[in-house]
């Protein structure tokens, strides 16, 4: 955690700094490592590029995209969105708990985040299997190419997210580690997976 006044923060080792209500409200700081924010912004612009290419192709063949989109189950997409939002909530709770020195609560929330991430993973794989059983594969048509590409690249980010969560759990497991900065950095990555999915959901399942 870095504050705007430029006060240094330990990069390694124990970095337990309970944050008072006053400092939450009055001091500006970048949560986690600034490098992670650079990565988040890079990924955000990269995905915006993917979304724009999808939108261009969609507007050129709206009937095909709408017919194919109707093969997806909007309720499954909604369920997946709710699950990832819940995982983000527990991750945010983990950060707050760790900042306040409540490490058992932080660990519990980190494990809950993993659990919800796993539920999303299983749901996504079963949705892919369902679509493939119905005869809609990657090369079935343009919509399904985008569907598999966007959901698979997001899935890859989710898998990396489990490694990141593993680092967070490892940090929380011993008083000798517990770097608040690393925990916040992991949380920033996990929330990125969440907000990218929110846009993917609206483009693949909801829009017309």
């Amino acid at each position, binding site marked *: 955690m870095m504050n705007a006044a430029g006060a240094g923060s330990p990069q390694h080792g124990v970095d337990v700094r309970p944050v008072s209500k006053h400092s939450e409200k009055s001091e500006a700081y970048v949560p986690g490592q600034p490098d992670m924010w650079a990565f988040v912004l890079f990924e955000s612009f990269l995905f915006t590029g993917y979304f724009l290419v999808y939108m261009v192709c969609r507007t050129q063949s709206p*009937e095909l995209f709408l017919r194919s989109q109707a093969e997806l189950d909007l309720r499954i997409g909604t369920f997946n969105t709710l699950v990832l939002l819940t995982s983000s909530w527990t991750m945010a709770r983990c950060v707050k708990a760790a900042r306040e020195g409540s490490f058992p609560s932080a660990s519990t929330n980190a494990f809950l985040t993993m659990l919800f991430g796993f539920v999303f993973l299983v749901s996504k794989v079963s949705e892919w299997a369902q679509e493939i059983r119905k005869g809609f594969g990657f090369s079935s048509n343009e919509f399904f190419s985008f569907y598999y590409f966007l959901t698979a690249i997001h899935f890859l980010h989710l898998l990396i997210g489990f490694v990141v969560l593993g680092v967070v759990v490892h940090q929380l497991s011993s008083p000798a580690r517990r770097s608040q900065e690393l925990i916040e950095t992991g949380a920033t990555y996990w929330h990125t997976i969440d907000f990218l999915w929110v*846009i993917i959901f609206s483009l693949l399942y909801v829009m017309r």
Partner: protein
Amino acid sequence: MSAGFGKRLLVVWLALCAITIVSLIVGSLEGRAAHVPNAAITSSAIGIALVKVRIIFREFMEVRHAPVSLCRLTDAWVLLTAVSLLGVYFLGMAFRMDAG
């Protein structure tokens, strides 16, 4: 975790879930199987998604406590994504190659 922060996160999570249910309702409007483009549903879907993204940035990712430059950068990305997606949608629908 202090009760104040915990309660705020709970309210944010409930709001995000409620907005997602609105998306479900919007996506189910006008018969999903009708296969007809609908600018109002598309604008609502993209608008709702980007409102959710901004809430995630500000509340879960704690951007509201971040230096103003990070707040502006994330807001700029949200705005750019909204304008570019909707712009491409409306321009693309107006100048469809297969529409003759």
